[in-house]
Protein backbone atom coordinates (compact mmCIF):
# COMPACT_ATOMS: atom_id res chain seq x y z
CA UNK A 1 0.00 0.00 0.00
CA UNK A 2 2.66 2.54 -0.93
CA UNK A 3 1.60 6.15 -1.03
CA UNK A 4 3.02 9.07 -2.93
CA UNK A 5 3.14 12.34 -1.11
CA UNK A 6 4.59 15.53 -2.60
CA UNK A 7 6.91 13.52 -4.80
CA UNK A 8 8.04 11.22 -1.99
CA UNK A 9 7.21 7.53 -2.20
CA UNK A 10 6.20 6.21 1.20
CA UNK A 11 5.81 2.56 2.16
CA UNK A 12 2.47 3.22 3.79
CA UNK A 13 0.26 6.10 4.93
CA UNK A 14 1.27 6.36 8.59
CA UNK A 15 3.71 8.98 9.86
CA UNK A 16 4.26 10.49 13.30
CA UNK A 17 2.91 13.76 14.60
CA UNK A 18 5.65 16.30 15.25
CA UNK A 19 6.87 16.32 18.83
CA UNK A 20 5.45 12.93 19.71
CA UNK A 21 8.33 10.62 18.88
CA UNK A 22 11.97 11.28 19.70
CA UNK A 23 13.73 8.77 17.47
CA UNK A 24 17.06 9.41 19.20
CA UNK A 25 15.67 8.64 22.66
CA UNK A 26 13.71 5.68 21.30
CA UNK A 27 16.87 4.31 19.70
CA UNK A 28 18.61 4.51 23.06
CA UNK A 29 15.68 2.83 24.81
CA UNK A 30 14.89 0.11 22.28
CA UNK A 31 18.10 -0.28 20.29
CA UNK A 32 18.23 -1.56 16.74
CA UNK A 33 14.77 -3.05 16.99
CA UNK A 34 13.45 0.49 16.59
CA UNK A 35 15.31 0.86 13.32
CA UNK A 36 14.30 -2.54 11.97
CA UNK A 37 10.66 -2.10 12.88
CA UNK A 38 10.47 1.60 12.37
CA UNK A 39 6.78 2.40 12.81
CA UNK A 40 6.44 5.35 10.45
CA UNK A 41 6.65 5.73 6.68
CA UNK A 42 8.24 9.14 7.16
CA UNK A 43 9.67 10.67 10.28
CA UNK A 44 8.72 14.16 11.42
CA UNK A 45 11.05 15.92 13.85
CA UNK A 46 9.78 17.89 16.75
CA UNK A 47 9.50 21.62 16.30
CA UNK A 48 12.81 23.43 15.91
CA UNK A 49 13.14 27.12 16.67
CA UNK A 50 15.91 29.57 15.82
CA UNK A 51 17.16 29.82 19.39
CA UNK A 52 17.46 26.96 21.87
CA UNK A 53 14.50 26.56 24.21
CA UNK A 54 14.43 24.74 27.54
CA UNK A 55 10.68 24.28 27.37
CA UNK A 56 8.05 25.00 30.01
CA UNK A 57 8.41 24.36 33.72
CA UNK A 58 6.76 21.18 34.94
CA UNK A 59 4.17 19.83 35.30
CA UNK A 60 3.88 19.52 31.55
CA UNK A 61 1.22 16.83 31.38
CA UNK A 62 -2.37 16.43 32.45
CA UNK A 63 -4.45 13.39 31.74
CA UNK A 64 -7.90 14.44 30.60
CA UNK A 65 -10.92 12.27 29.83
CA UNK A 66 -9.77 10.13 26.91
CA UNK A 67 -7.03 12.63 26.20
CA UNK A 68 -3.84 14.35 27.17
CA UNK A 69 -3.19 18.01 27.80
CA UNK A 70 0.42 18.96 27.25
CA UNK A 71 2.35 22.09 27.80
CA UNK A 72 5.79 21.01 26.74
CA UNK A 73 6.86 24.37 25.38
CA UNK A 74 8.85 23.19 22.38
CA UNK A 75 12.15 22.36 24.05
CA UNK A 76 14.86 22.05 21.39
CA UNK A 77 18.50 22.83 20.84
CA UNK A 78 17.78 25.66 18.44
CA UNK A 79 18.48 25.59 14.73
CA UNK A 80 22.26 25.33 15.01
CA UNK A 81 22.18 22.66 17.69
CA UNK A 82 19.63 20.69 15.71
CA UNK A 83 21.58 20.83 12.48
CA UNK A 84 24.85 20.00 14.22
CA UNK A 85 23.79 17.35 16.75
CA UNK A 86 20.33 15.94 16.18
CA UNK A 87 19.88 16.02 12.42
CA UNK A 88 22.83 13.71 11.64
CA UNK A 89 21.65 11.21 14.22
CA UNK A 90 18.06 11.33 13.05
CA UNK A 91 19.18 11.06 9.44
CA UNK A 92 21.30 8.05 10.28
CA UNK A 93 18.32 6.30 11.89
CA UNK A 94 15.94 7.30 9.10
CA UNK A 95 18.35 6.16 6.39
CA UNK A 96 18.35 2.62 7.76
CA UNK A 97 14.76 2.54 8.98
CA UNK A 98 12.35 -0.18 8.03
CA UNK A 99 13.20 -2.77 5.43
CA UNK A 100 16.40 -0.91 4.65
CA UNK A 101 15.17 1.59 2.10
CA UNK A 102 14.94 4.19 4.82
CA UNK A 103 12.23 6.75 5.43
CA UNK A 104 12.20 10.43 4.51
CA UNK A 105 12.93 12.90 7.26
CA UNK A 106 10.67 15.90 7.67
CA UNK A 107 11.86 18.80 9.79
CA UNK A 108 9.25 20.83 11.61
CA UNK A 109 10.12 24.48 12.28
CA UNK A 110 8.46 27.36 14.02
CA UNK A 111 9.24 31.04 14.05
CA UNK A 112 7.58 34.14 15.42
CA UNK A 113 7.90 36.03 12.16
CA UNK A 114 8.39 35.57 8.45
CA UNK A 115 12.03 36.53 8.90
CA UNK A 116 12.63 33.86 11.49
CA UNK A 117 10.78 31.25 9.48
CA UNK A 118 12.72 32.18 6.37
CA UNK A 119 16.02 31.62 8.14
CA UNK A 120 14.81 28.25 9.43
CA UNK A 121 13.51 27.17 6.05
CA UNK A 122 16.59 28.32 4.20
CA UNK A 123 18.80 26.39 6.60
CA UNK A 124 16.72 23.24 6.09
CA UNK A 125 16.83 23.74 2.33
CA UNK A 126 20.61 23.51 2.49
CA UNK A 127 20.61 20.09 4.17
CA UNK A 128 20.19 17.09 1.94
CA UNK A 129 19.15 14.87 4.85
CA UNK A 130 15.90 16.81 5.05
CA UNK A 131 13.28 15.57 2.60
CA UNK A 132 10.52 18.02 3.48
CA UNK A 133 9.77 20.92 5.78
CA UNK A 134 6.76 21.37 8.03
CA UNK A 135 5.88 24.86 9.27
CA UNK A 136 4.33 24.87 12.70
CA UNK A 137 2.10 27.92 12.71
CA UNK A 138 -0.24 26.46 15.24
CA UNK A 139 1.28 25.56 18.54
CA UNK A 140 -0.99 27.02 21.23
CA UNK A 141 1.47 26.51 24.04
CA UNK A 142 3.97 29.17 23.19
CA UNK A 143 3.48 32.89 23.14
CA UNK A 144 4.52 34.09 19.74
CA UNK A 145 2.44 37.19 20.07
CA UNK A 146 -0.47 36.47 17.75
CA UNK A 147 -1.12 32.99 16.55
CA UNK A 148 -0.17 33.36 12.90
CA UNK A 149 -1.97 30.24 11.82
CA UNK A 150 -5.38 31.34 13.07
CA UNK A 151 -5.55 34.33 10.72
CA UNK A 152 -5.72 33.42 7.02
CA UNK A 153 -4.14 36.68 5.93
CA UNK A 154 -1.13 36.47 8.23
CA UNK A 155 -0.75 32.82 7.38
CA UNK A 156 -0.76 33.51 3.66
CA UNK A 157 1.82 36.26 4.05
CA UNK A 158 4.17 34.06 6.04
CA UNK A 159 3.94 31.11 3.68
CA UNK A 160 4.44 33.39 0.70
CA UNK A 161 7.55 34.80 2.33
CA UNK A 162 9.21 31.45 3.00
CA UNK A 163 8.06 29.60 -0.11
CA UNK A 164 10.84 30.93 -2.42
CA UNK A 165 13.50 29.75 0.02
CA UNK A 166 12.98 26.05 -0.50
CA UNK A 167 12.33 23.66 -3.32
CA UNK A 168 11.54 20.90 -0.88
CA UNK A 169 7.95 19.95 -0.12
CA UNK A 170 6.54 22.54 2.26
CA UNK A 171 3.84 21.33 4.65
CA UNK A 172 1.90 23.88 6.69
CA UNK A 173 0.65 22.56 10.01
CA UNK A 174 -2.57 24.39 10.70
CA UNK A 175 -3.98 25.39 14.04
CA UNK A 176 -7.38 23.92 14.95
CA UNK A 177 -8.11 26.86 17.24
CA UNK A 178 -9.71 28.95 14.58
CA UNK A 179 -13.13 29.75 13.20
CA UNK A 180 -12.62 28.46 9.68
CA UNK A 181 -9.74 26.06 9.26
CA UNK A 182 -10.60 25.45 5.60
CA UNK A 183 -10.02 29.11 4.85
CA UNK A 184 -6.63 28.88 6.56
CA UNK A 185 -5.79 25.84 4.46
CA UNK A 186 -6.85 27.68 1.35
CA UNK A 187 -4.57 30.57 2.32
CA UNK A 188 -1.64 28.18 2.72
CA UNK A 189 -2.35 26.61 -0.64
CA UNK A 190 -2.68 29.98 -2.34
CA UNK A 191 0.69 30.97 -0.91
CA UNK A 192 2.37 27.94 -2.40
CA UNK A 193 2.29 25.27 0.30
CA UNK A 194 2.64 21.72 -1.02
CA UNK A 195 0.56 20.21 1.75
CA UNK A 196 -1.28 21.06 4.93
CA UNK A 197 -1.32 18.99 8.11
CA UNK A 198 -3.83 19.05 10.96
CA UNK A 199 -4.97 19.00 13.66
CA UNK A 200 -2.59 20.35 16.21
CA UNK A 201 -3.78 20.29 19.81
CA UNK A 202 -6.90 22.13 21.05
CA UNK A 203 -6.24 24.90 23.53
CA UNK A 204 -7.08 23.57 26.98
CA UNK A 205 -6.67 24.27 30.67
CA UNK A 206 -6.38 21.99 33.68
CA UNK A 207 -6.48 23.05 37.32
CA UNK A 208 -4.84 21.52 40.34
CA UNK A 209 -7.47 19.24 41.83
CA UNK A 210 -9.27 20.42 44.94
CA UNK A 211 -9.08 16.96 46.41
CA UNK A 212 -5.30 17.02 46.67
CA UNK A 213 -5.23 20.62 47.80
CA UNK A 214 -3.89 20.02 51.28
CA UNK A 215 -1.11 17.70 50.25
CA UNK A 216 -0.10 19.84 47.36
CA UNK A 217 0.02 23.09 49.20
CA UNK A 218 2.44 21.61 51.65
CA UNK A 219 4.43 20.39 48.70
CA UNK A 220 5.00 23.80 47.20
CA UNK A 221 2.03 26.02 46.62
CA UNK A 222 0.17 23.95 44.07
CA UNK A 223 -3.30 24.72 45.29
CA UNK A 224 -6.86 24.63 44.03
CA UNK A 225 -7.74 27.24 41.48
CA UNK A 226 -4.17 27.27 40.21
CA UNK A 227 -3.30 25.97 36.80
CA UNK A 228 -1.87 22.47 36.97
CA UNK A 229 0.52 22.99 34.08
CA UNK A 230 3.63 25.10 34.50
CA UNK A 231 2.85 26.68 31.14
CA UNK A 232 -0.70 27.51 32.35
CA UNK A 233 -2.64 26.51 29.23
CA UNK A 234 -1.84 23.46 27.16
CA UNK A 235 -3.07 21.54 24.18
CA UNK A 236 -5.50 18.63 24.13
CA UNK A 237 -4.72 15.55 22.03
CA UNK A 238 -5.80 11.93 21.91
CA UNK A 239 -9.15 10.17 21.41
CA UNK A 240 -11.06 13.12 22.90
CA UNK A 241 -10.24 15.22 19.82
CA UNK A 242 -10.73 12.58 17.14
CA UNK A 243 -14.18 13.66 15.99
CA UNK A 244 -13.07 17.30 15.96
CA UNK A 245 -10.06 16.32 13.84
CA UNK A 246 -12.28 14.39 11.46
CA UNK A 247 -14.50 17.44 10.95
CA UNK A 248 -11.55 19.75 10.34
CA UNK A 249 -9.68 17.37 8.03
CA UNK A 250 -12.88 16.78 6.09
CA UNK A 251 -13.48 20.51 5.68
CA UNK A 252 -9.90 21.14 4.62
CA UNK A 253 -9.67 18.23 2.18
CA UNK A 254 -12.87 19.40 0.54
CA UNK A 255 -11.38 22.84 0.04
CA UNK A 256 -7.80 22.39 -1.15
CA UNK A 257 -6.16 20.45 -3.97
CA UNK A 258 -2.86 19.80 -2.19
CA UNK A 259 -2.47 16.62 -0.13
CA UNK A 260 -3.57 16.70 3.47
CA UNK A 261 -1.88 15.03 6.44
CA UNK A 262 -4.65 14.18 8.87
CA UNK A 263 -4.16 13.55 12.57
CA UNK A 264 -5.82 13.77 15.93
CA UNK A 265 -6.73 10.93 18.25
CA UNK A 266 -5.87 8.09 15.90
CA UNK A 267 -5.54 4.80 17.78
CA UNK A 268 -6.36 2.18 15.17
CA UNK A 269 -6.37 1.39 11.49
CA UNK A 270 -10.09 2.12 11.51
CA UNK A 271 -9.44 5.61 12.85
CA UNK A 272 -6.76 6.17 10.20
CA UNK A 273 -9.09 4.85 7.51
CA UNK A 274 -11.71 7.44 8.45
CA UNK A 275 -9.25 10.30 7.99
CA UNK A 276 -8.33 8.87 4.59
CA UNK A 277 -12.03 8.47 3.79
CA UNK A 278 -12.63 12.19 4.30
CA UNK A 279 -9.73 13.04 2.05
CA UNK A 280 -6.41 12.86 3.89
CA UNK A 281 -3.44 11.48 1.97
CA UNK A 282 -1.37 10.57 5.03
CA UNK A 283 -2.28 10.01 8.64
CA UNK A 284 -0.11 11.01 11.57
CA UNK A 285 -0.11 9.27 14.92
CA UNK A 286 0.79 11.25 18.02
CA UNK A 287 -0.47 10.47 21.48
CA UNK A 288 -1.12 6.81 20.72
CA UNK A 289 2.62 6.28 20.32
CA UNK A 290 2.98 7.20 23.99
CA UNK A 291 0.89 4.18 24.92
CA UNK A 292 2.85 1.95 22.58
CA UNK A 293 5.96 3.05 20.71
CA UNK A 294 5.13 0.54 17.95
CA UNK A 295 1.59 1.84 17.51
CA UNK A 296 2.38 3.36 14.11
CA UNK A 297 3.32 -0.02 12.67
CA UNK A 298 0.27 -1.71 14.14
CA UNK A 299 -2.01 1.00 12.74
CA UNK A 300 -0.40 0.64 9.30
CA UNK A 301 -1.04 -3.11 9.43
CA UNK A 302 -4.63 -2.66 10.57
CA UNK A 303 -5.19 -0.10 7.83
CA UNK A 304 -3.86 -2.53 5.27
CA UNK A 305 -6.50 -5.03 6.37
CA UNK A 306 -9.38 -2.59 5.81
CA UNK A 307 -10.62 -2.03 2.31
CA UNK A 308 -10.81 1.53 1.04
CA UNK A 309 -14.17 3.21 0.51
Amino acid at each position, binding site marked *: MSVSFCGLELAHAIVNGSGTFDAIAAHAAFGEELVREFPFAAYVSKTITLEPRAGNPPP*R*LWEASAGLVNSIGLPNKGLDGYLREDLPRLAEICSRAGTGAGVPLVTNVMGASATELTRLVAACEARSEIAAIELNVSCPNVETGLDIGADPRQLEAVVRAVRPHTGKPLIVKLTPNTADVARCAQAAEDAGADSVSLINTLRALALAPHATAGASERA*GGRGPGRAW*LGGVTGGLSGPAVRVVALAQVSAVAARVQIPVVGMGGVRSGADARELLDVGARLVAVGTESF*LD*PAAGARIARELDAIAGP
Partner: protein
Amino acid sequence: MSRAPFARRLLSVIGVDELGAYRVLRVADEGPDAEPGQFAMLAAAEDWGGGEEQRPFLARAFSFARQVRGEAHFLLEDVGPGSRRLCELGAGDGLWVLGPLGQGFRAPAAGRRAILLGGGVGIAPLAILQDRLTAAATTVLLGFRDSARAEGAALLDGARVASDDGSVGHHGRVTDLLEQELARDRDAIVYACGPVAMLESVRAICAARDVPAQLALEAGMACGFGACFGCVVARRGGGYLRVCVDGPVLDAHELERVEEPAGAPV
Protein backbone atom coordinates in the same frame (compact mmCIF):
# COMPACT_ATOMS: atom_id res chain seq x y z
CA MET B 1 20.97 -0.73 30.98
CA SER B 2 18.50 -3.41 30.08
CA ARG B 3 16.70 -2.65 26.87
CA ALA B 4 13.00 -2.96 26.40
CA PRO B 5 11.58 -4.82 23.42
CA PHE B 6 10.27 -2.27 20.93
CA ALA B 7 6.53 -2.59 21.51
CA ARG B 8 4.44 -3.08 24.58
CA ARG B 9 3.85 -6.72 25.45
CA LEU B 10 0.59 -8.34 26.51
CA LEU B 11 1.47 -10.31 29.64
CA SER B 12 -0.67 -12.37 31.93
CA VAL B 13 -1.35 -11.56 35.54
CA ILE B 14 -0.46 -14.38 37.92
CA GLY B 15 -1.96 -12.78 40.97
CA VAL B 16 -2.36 -9.69 43.08
CA ASP B 17 -1.42 -10.14 46.74
CA GLU B 18 -2.20 -7.86 49.63
CA LEU B 19 0.73 -6.41 51.52
CA GLY B 20 -0.74 -4.17 54.19
CA ALA B 21 -1.94 -1.02 52.49
CA TYR B 22 -0.26 -2.10 49.24
CA ARG B 23 -0.73 -4.78 46.61
CA VAL B 24 1.91 -6.86 44.90
CA LEU B 25 1.06 -7.43 41.26
CA ARG B 26 2.73 -10.54 39.90
CA VAL B 27 3.04 -10.94 36.14
CA ALA B 28 4.36 -13.74 33.96
CA ASP B 29 7.32 -12.08 32.28
CA GLU B 30 9.96 -13.85 30.22
CA GLY B 31 11.26 -10.52 28.95
CA PRO B 32 14.66 -8.96 29.56
CA ASP B 33 16.03 -8.68 33.08
CA ALA B 34 15.26 -5.35 34.66
CA GLU B 35 17.97 -3.48 36.48
CA PRO B 36 17.10 -2.19 39.92
CA GLY B 37 15.53 1.23 39.51
CA GLN B 38 14.15 0.52 36.07
CA PHE B 39 10.43 0.71 35.54
CA ALA B 40 7.70 -0.37 33.18
CA MET B 41 4.64 1.38 31.78
CA LEU B 42 1.58 -0.66 32.72
CA ALA B 43 -2.01 -0.63 31.49
CA ALA B 44 -4.77 -3.16 32.00
CA ALA B 45 -5.73 -4.81 28.72
CA GLU B 46 -9.44 -4.50 29.53
CA ASP B 47 -11.49 -1.71 31.09
CA TRP B 48 -8.73 0.87 31.08
CA GLY B 49 -10.56 4.16 31.09
CA GLY B 50 -13.84 3.81 32.92
CA GLY B 51 -12.78 5.33 36.23
CA GLU B 52 -13.19 8.84 37.60
CA GLU B 53 -13.14 11.49 34.86
CA GLN B 54 -13.19 8.64 32.31
CA ARG B 55 -9.60 7.90 33.21
CA PRO B 56 -7.04 6.25 33.12
CA PHE B 57 -6.07 6.80 29.53
CA LEU B 58 -2.27 6.72 29.52
CA ALA B 59 -0.18 3.83 30.84
CA ARG B 60 1.25 4.20 34.35
CA ALA B 61 4.87 3.95 35.50
CA PHE B 62 5.77 1.33 38.09
CA SER B 63 9.18 0.27 39.32
CA PHE B 64 10.19 -3.31 39.02
CA ALA B 65 10.03 -4.44 42.65
CA ARG B 66 11.28 -7.93 42.00
CA GLN B 67 12.03 -10.29 39.14
CA VAL B 68 12.21 -13.99 39.89
CA ARG B 69 11.70 -17.18 37.90
CA GLY B 70 9.83 -15.61 35.01
CA GLU B 71 7.77 -13.39 37.26
CA ALA B 72 7.93 -9.62 37.49
CA HIS B 73 6.53 -8.03 40.65
CA PHE B 74 5.21 -4.53 41.00
CA LEU B 75 4.22 -2.85 44.25
CA LEU B 76 1.01 -0.87 43.90
CA GLU B 77 -0.53 1.85 45.99
CA ASP B 78 -4.08 2.83 45.11
CA VAL B 79 -3.89 6.59 44.66
CA GLY B 80 -6.11 7.17 41.65
CA PRO B 81 -7.97 5.57 38.76
CA GLY B 82 -4.95 3.93 37.12
CA SER B 83 -3.44 2.32 40.19
CA ARG B 84 -6.94 1.37 41.36
CA ARG B 85 -7.66 -0.53 38.17
CA LEU B 86 -4.33 -2.33 38.42
CA CYS B 87 -5.09 -3.29 42.04
CA GLU B 88 -8.34 -4.90 40.84
CA LEU B 89 -6.63 -7.24 38.37
CA GLY B 90 -6.88 -10.97 38.92
CA ALA B 91 -5.13 -14.10 37.77
CA GLY B 92 -5.28 -14.52 34.02
CA ASP B 93 -6.09 -10.90 33.26
CA GLY B 94 -4.09 -9.25 30.51
CA LEU B 95 -1.61 -6.48 31.26
CA TRP B 96 0.18 -4.30 28.73
CA VAL B 97 3.80 -3.90 29.77
CA LEU B 98 6.37 -1.66 28.13
CA GLY B 99 9.81 -2.01 29.61
CA PRO B 100 12.18 -2.30 31.35
CA LEU B 101 12.79 1.40 30.85
CA GLY B 102 15.11 4.09 32.15
CA GLN B 103 18.39 4.28 34.00
CA GLY B 104 18.61 2.19 37.14
CA PHE B 105 20.80 2.41 40.21
CA ARG B 106 24.58 2.23 39.66
CA ALA B 107 26.43 -0.32 41.83
CA PRO B 108 28.35 0.99 44.84
CA ALA B 109 32.11 1.36 44.73
CA ALA B 110 33.69 -1.80 46.04
CA GLY B 111 33.69 -2.01 49.81
CA ARG B 112 31.29 0.83 50.29
CA ARG B 113 28.20 0.26 52.39
CA ALA B 114 24.89 0.68 50.59
CA ILE B 115 22.15 2.42 52.51
CA LEU B 116 18.76 1.69 50.97
CA LEU B 117 16.34 4.35 52.06
CA GLY B 118 12.71 4.12 51.09
CA GLY B 119 9.52 5.96 51.87
CA GLY B 120 6.07 4.48 51.32
CA VAL B 121 5.55 2.76 48.03
CA GLY B 122 9.01 4.06 47.08
CA ILE B 123 10.46 0.97 48.72
CA ALA B 124 9.64 -0.97 45.53
CA PRO B 125 12.88 -0.48 43.58
CA LEU B 126 14.91 -1.02 46.75
CA ALA B 127 13.61 -4.58 47.02
CA ILE B 128 15.04 -5.62 43.68
CA LEU B 129 18.15 -3.59 44.47
CA GLN B 130 18.63 -5.55 47.68
CA ASP B 131 18.14 -8.80 45.72
CA ARG B 132 20.98 -7.85 43.40
CA LEU B 133 23.37 -6.23 45.90
CA THR B 134 24.56 -9.58 47.12
CA ALA B 135 28.19 -8.48 47.39
CA ALA B 136 27.79 -5.24 49.33
CA ALA B 137 27.01 -4.59 52.96
CA THR B 138 23.57 -3.03 53.06
CA THR B 139 21.56 -1.08 55.57
CA VAL B 140 17.83 -0.77 54.91
CA LEU B 141 15.88 2.18 56.31
CA LEU B 142 12.19 2.44 55.50
CA GLY B 143 9.66 5.06 56.46
CA PHE B 144 5.87 4.78 56.37
CA ARG B 145 2.90 6.88 57.27
CA ASP B 146 1.15 4.27 59.39
CA SER B 147 1.17 0.63 60.39
CA ALA B 148 -0.87 -0.61 57.40
CA ARG B 149 1.72 0.85 55.08
CA ALA B 150 4.59 -0.33 57.28
CA GLU B 151 3.63 -3.88 56.44
CA GLY B 152 5.28 -3.14 53.12
CA ALA B 153 8.62 -3.43 54.92
CA ALA B 154 8.28 -7.21 54.55
CA LEU B 155 9.35 -6.72 50.93
CA LEU B 156 12.94 -6.19 52.10
CA ASP B 157 15.14 -8.03 54.56
CA GLY B 158 16.34 -6.58 57.83
CA ALA B 159 14.79 -3.16 57.54
CA ARG B 160 14.84 -0.54 60.27
CA VAL B 161 11.46 1.13 60.11
CA ALA B 162 10.23 4.59 60.99
CA SER B 163 6.60 5.65 61.03
CA ASP B 164 5.01 9.06 61.04
CA ASP B 165 2.44 8.00 63.61
CA GLY B 166 4.86 6.02 65.76
CA SER B 167 2.89 2.83 65.33
CA VAL B 168 5.89 0.92 64.07
CA GLY B 169 9.60 1.42 64.81
CA HIS B 170 11.08 4.88 65.14
CA HIS B 171 8.44 7.57 65.70
CA GLY B 172 9.45 10.15 63.16
CA ARG B 173 11.11 10.41 59.81
CA VAL B 174 13.19 7.80 58.14
CA THR B 175 15.75 10.50 57.44
CA ASP B 176 16.34 10.71 61.22
CA LEU B 177 17.58 7.14 60.90
CA LEU B 178 19.75 8.14 57.96
CA GLU B 179 21.38 10.85 60.01
CA GLN B 180 22.08 8.33 62.77
CA GLU B 181 23.59 5.88 60.29
CA LEU B 182 25.78 8.49 58.66
CA ALA B 183 26.87 9.77 62.05
CA ARG B 184 28.00 6.23 62.82
CA ASP B 185 29.70 5.60 59.46
CA ARG B 186 29.90 7.96 56.55
CA ASP B 187 31.61 5.60 54.12
CA ALA B 188 28.37 4.78 52.40
CA ILE B 189 26.30 5.43 49.34
CA VAL B 190 22.61 6.16 49.68
CA TYR B 191 20.00 4.73 47.34
CA ALA B 192 16.73 6.47 47.96
CA CYS B 193 13.21 6.38 46.63
CA GLY B 194 10.09 7.92 48.10
CA PRO B 195 8.12 11.13 48.44
CA VAL B 196 9.54 14.39 47.21
CA ALA B 197 10.04 15.85 50.69
CA MET B 198 11.95 12.74 51.78
CA LEU B 199 14.16 12.81 48.72
CA GLU B 200 14.93 16.47 49.22
CA SER B 201 15.85 15.78 52.79
CA VAL B 202 18.11 12.89 51.71
CA ARG B 203 19.73 15.12 49.12
CA ALA B 204 20.42 17.86 51.63
CA ILE B 205 21.70 15.47 54.31
CA CYS B 206 24.03 13.70 51.90
CA ALA B 207 25.21 16.92 50.28
CA ALA B 208 26.08 18.37 53.68
CA ARG B 209 28.10 15.26 54.54
CA ASP B 210 29.51 14.71 51.07
CA VAL B 211 27.93 11.29 50.85
CA PRO B 212 27.02 10.11 47.35
CA ALA B 213 23.33 9.57 46.82
CA GLN B 214 21.29 8.15 43.98
CA LEU B 215 17.67 9.24 43.95
CA ALA B 216 14.93 7.37 42.12
CA LEU B 217 12.49 10.09 41.08
CA GLU B 218 8.88 10.11 40.05
CA ALA B 219 7.23 12.43 37.58
CA GLY B 220 3.98 12.43 35.66
CA MET B 221 4.74 10.44 32.52
CA ALA B 222 2.90 9.95 29.27
CA CYS B 223 5.30 7.65 27.45
CA GLY B 224 8.24 6.44 29.52
CA PHE B 225 10.70 6.36 26.61
CA GLY B 226 11.61 9.96 25.93
CA ALA B 227 8.95 10.69 23.33
CA CYS B 228 6.77 13.29 25.02
CA PHE B 229 9.23 15.47 26.99
CA GLY B 230 6.60 15.60 29.70
CA CYS B 231 8.38 14.13 32.70
CA VAL B 232 11.03 16.73 33.32
CA VAL B 233 12.78 17.95 36.46
CA ALA B 234 15.01 20.99 36.58
CA ARG B 235 18.68 20.13 36.19
CA ARG B 236 21.24 21.83 38.38
CA GLY B 237 22.74 24.59 36.28
CA GLY B 238 19.75 25.02 34.01
CA GLY B 239 17.57 23.12 31.63
CA TYR B 240 15.62 20.00 32.29
CA LEU B 241 16.17 16.27 32.53
CA ARG B 242 13.64 13.71 31.33
CA VAL B 243 13.02 11.45 34.29
CA CYS B 244 12.11 8.53 32.05
CA VAL B 245 15.30 8.39 29.99
CA ASP B 246 17.83 10.39 32.01
CA GLY B 247 16.45 8.75 35.17
CA PRO B 248 14.41 7.70 37.00
CA VAL B 249 17.60 7.24 39.06
CA LEU B 250 19.64 10.43 39.14
CA ASP B 251 22.78 11.29 41.05
CA ALA B 252 21.70 13.71 43.74
CA HIS B 253 24.18 16.32 42.57
CA GLU B 254 22.43 16.53 39.20
CA LEU B 255 19.64 18.36 41.00
CA GLU B 256 19.60 21.71 42.73
CA ARG B 257 16.81 20.43 44.88
CA VAL B 258 14.01 17.90 44.71
CA GLU B 259 10.68 19.65 44.61
CA GLU B 260 7.08 19.18 43.71
CA PRO B 261 6.29 21.17 40.56
CA ALA B 262 4.14 24.11 41.50
CA GLY B 263 1.82 24.75 38.58
CA ALA B 264 0.99 28.37 37.88
CA PRO B 265 -1.62 31.00 38.62
CA VAL B 266 -4.32 31.00 35.98
